[in-house]
């Protein structure tokens, strides 16, 4: 059975000069582990295994499943990708092939590269009056000085 699961996952995630295949990093076993405590997903995995067992004569298991049961195929694909991309060896390849640091987001976080860009110099108020006198008055006042520092006390006075 694991041979069939290896065959299926290798069709989804074949290896190449840079990337391991699914079976190289034992995706099949990892899939079983991911769903072991999830009754609903265990049922789906069992369905997948049954399909693989009864379809081993077809040239491509993945294509056959996609054509036969798109929903089950979607489940199997997501599960295989999940097992593959959380594998430490694969994460290492991701890091080697990009500038991504191979570690969890916390606790270190990531340095954010950025540029300083300021909004273009708008001098028009872009929100629309709701038709109340309050709205019109605030709009006029705001337009006098868009950079004015308002206080909570001033804002409290707006209550209708």
């Amino acid at each position, binding site marked *: 059975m694991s041979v069939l699961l290896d065959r299926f996952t290798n*069709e*989804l*995630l*074949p290896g*190449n000069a840079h*990337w391991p295949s699914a079976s190289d990093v034992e995706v099949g076993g990892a899939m079983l582990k*991911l769903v072991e405590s999830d009754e609903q997903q265990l049922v789906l995995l069992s369905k997948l295994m049954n399909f693989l067992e009864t379809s081993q004569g077809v040239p491509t298991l*993945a294509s056959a499943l996609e054509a036969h049961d798109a929903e089950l195929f979607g489940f199997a*694909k*997501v599960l295989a990708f*999940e097992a*593959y*991309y*959380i594998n*430490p060896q*694969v*994460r290492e390849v*991701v890091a080697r092939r*990009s*500038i*991504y640091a191979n570690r*969890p*987001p*916390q*606790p270190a*976080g*990531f*340095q*954010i*590269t*950025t*540029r300083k*860009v300021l*909004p*273009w110099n*708008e*001098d*028009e108020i*872009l*929100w*629309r*009056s*709701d*038709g*109340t006198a*309050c*709205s019109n008055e*605030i*709009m006029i006042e*705001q337009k006098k000085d*868009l950079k*004015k*520092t*308002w206080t*909570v006390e001033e*804002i*409290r006075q*707006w*209550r*209708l």
Partner: protein
Amino acid sequence: MVALHDEVNVLVVGAGAAGAAFTWRLASMGVAVTCLEQGEWQTPKSSLTDLDGWESKRLRDRSPNPNIRRNAADYPILDDTSIIKPAIFNGVGGSTILWSAHTPRFRPSDFRVRSLDGVGADWPISYWDLAEYYEINDEIMGTSGQHGDPGNPPRTPRNSPPVSLGIAGSRIAEALNELKWHWWPSDGNILTTDRGTRKACNGCGPCEMGCAIGARASVDITYWPAALALGADLRTGATVRRVLVDSTGRATGVEWIDQAGEERVTHANFVVMACNGVGTPRILLNSASKEHPNGLGNSSDQLGRNLMLHPIPVVTGVFDEDVQSWSGNDAFALLIQEFYENDESRDFKRGYEMQVTRGQGPLVTALGGFSHDIPWGPGHHEAFEKFFGHVATVAVTCEDLPHPNNKVTIDASVTDRFGIPAARMSYELEENSKKMIKHGIKKATDLLMKAGARETHAKPFAPGAGFHLMGTARMGSNPKDSFVDQACRSHDVSNLLVIDGSVFASAAAVNPTPTLQAVALRAADLLRVDALV
């Protein structure tokens, strides 16, 4: 079995964004207030973002979809009749545990959509009634941003500078300057400088799994500690089955089940619902009685109707440059409101906002991110390398108009672990939304291409984006077409309040949390005199 009884003054159901704000406000005015929450407290470790397998957790334990996550506190939401799936969290902090903390405000016109543009329903209150409460809320939650946006009414200086634009955000901001489209650094409840025990954002990416360092606010670390210090009573593991009424139809309290499975009854002078746009109608519909045969307080037949979710089309641009799209807070850096207000020259009513999203790790990228598609089989690895780190996504938040057939109902064919009937979401896109989506995708595509994207990929809506749950117990002046009045009190049951997103008469085109918190704070002020005992 005989239920255990007790008696309190104000009883809030739900310890999320609205329930926390309301409880804190009442407690700060000396009012005795108790809150029942069906989930538990989270810890900084709960985010799981420090684990090697963190991305897997995002699909499972920290999935925003309760039907996938299936925690003990989650109740089933049947969603096969909705094209957009629910995204909520049940626990102290509610959905702020798994939110992105993007906090733009409604604009004044959003409260007058019927009067100004002839669609939807007006609120019985205005932006100006909520303005001071937005300010109070921003201060408690801790808000980064930049005051002075000409696209919105004035506000006070923010607690910390805006979040970083990042490489893609910078490119897009420069493109917006060339296009002369409105943009402004987004307000967010994500601190960029240390504040008390909360640390400055370190750009780790997956805000929606929770924040281990407290940079991204959630009400369990903002409102709740303050409310508890003021004497508020919070009881966790408390699943409310129904609201009880007396023979006159007045609310007398709630029936609930504790962690040990014991049936309990808590009597109260006021019952306040804060369980979000699905959870609140679920409990109130489950509270039907001889006096309220269609659900508690539902003589208007509006309870559960007018569900608004914000359809969110997404367009992903692929850049030659590595824009480090795994880093930075995940849902926003800047806010684009060029197409926000109604424009009669367009073929749809009302408008939308756009925001730039990021924060996608390897697994999420491989699964297609927001809107691209990576093939399986030969070519998979080449495609992954093309996308990973090289994408930016513009999410278009479309204003949703209320429709009575978009709704939350109860479905007794499925129940939670205590036998309480499930909620069912029924939701379809209206013609107005479809036209708006088309327009938004075109403009987002233009923007990304202007910013230097080599190619773009679009999806008409994000199917998992059912996180803005609004309208299902709406506020209005007329008891015949609304559920609560301007003070959030039920038209039919004067000591029953609803204070969450359910009361929204319109959805606007922005994230609803600061608005629903402002509504909750105002409702607390209005209840204060009656609730002082």
